[in-house]
């Protein structure tokens, strides 16, 4: 999974902002979403889950559900594509 090349994005004080260039829209990510987003394509999904669990002090199973739900939402929007 990787971030779609049509997007631009940056993190501002820990908060992710995504620019959807084809649709010319901005999307702000919440803290958990921003944390996950900044790791996509850099580390594996398993590592993201483990880091979310540690950073947000939740069970790893909960972290995995959150990460997968986030991935699904981002794929629906076309923000994530297969590597």
């Amino acid at each position, binding site marked *: 999974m990787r971030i779609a090349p049509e997007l*631009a*994005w*940056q993190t*501002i004080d820990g908060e992710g*902002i995504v*620019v959807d*260039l084809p649709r*010319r*829209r901005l999307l*702000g990510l919440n803290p958990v979403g921003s944390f996950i987003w900044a790791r996509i394509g850099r580390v594996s999904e398993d590592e993201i889950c483990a880091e979310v669990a540690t950073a947000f002090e939740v069970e790893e199973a909960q972290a995995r559900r959150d990460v997968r739900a986030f991935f699904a939402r981002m794929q629906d929007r076309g923000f994530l594509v297969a590597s």
Partner: protein
Amino acid sequence: MAVRASHALQERALRHAQPLSALLELTYACNWRCVFCYNPRHHDQRRMSGAEWTKVVADLRQLGTLNVTVTGGEPLTHPEAFEVMEAVRSQAMTFRLYTNGSLVTDEVAQRLAALRPITVELSLHGASSGTHDRSTATPGSFDALWRGVAALKAHGLPIVLKTPLTRINENELEEMIALTEREGVPYNLDATLTHRDDGDSAPLQYSVTPEGLDRYYALLARHNRVPASHRTFGGVNCGLGRTTLAVDPEGNVYPCPQWRKSSLGNVRDTPLLELWHGSSVRAEAAAVAQQANDALLAAGGPMARFPFCPAVAQERTGDPLHADPLHLLEAQAAEKARLAASR
């Protein structure tokens, strides 16, 4: 779409000195000779290569930049201009391109469209070829501009036309607005001319006349678009030294596009990341942005409510904290127009 972070995000970027916006001047070279241009010359001596710009772009990503402006000179005269724009997009940042349009062929427009710039911004210097070409000192430039606009439109690129208002074109103000409306292109005007980057004040002789300023601000007031600043004590005037930076064609780094009094250093000697985080020049410029805000509020009058550029004031009078006569003239014209429109 103007890609601007929300006010809250801008505030956070200001607090953390995160340069959200960066201006890259690829080259001094230009095929036009605009009489009021800020460029000190129209040729390069030690221009950076595409590979050098690519390193700068990678550092911008690390610094937290989101929006890059690619400009010149005429940036499309740089043989590796596309390499730089492609590097910006591959680093997941947005860019806008400032161009005079004369080198925009169908092929160039097609390559640009694939990169999805936020805007391609071109300058309109008059409603007639006579006025436009007199401003650019380049016969045929008016027609070249419109050929470029047509090529960009054909590929669906988001175009913005803009005019530096001068005493040469101020009498065609209404005609320029009508022309851009007919073309269906967003349009911006700016009445501020600046010194050349080497300090030469020659461009200021073309500054719009006081009567032209009054007409311009009356027009803005009719559309409720007179610019205003909402200052509070302890705030900052602008992103100088905090949320903006500029890199010139030879790699010198400045704390905003206008501030040329002192450089943070050169990216050929020191990586941009180190320059931004370690430079006392950046910290001093950031302090100026705060001091100017409080000084303008303390002085009161129309400048307390009007946008102010410390870098421009620095060039004009050597004092970046107080309004120079041209800033004051604009603020007074804006205030007069706002009052007249409210009656």
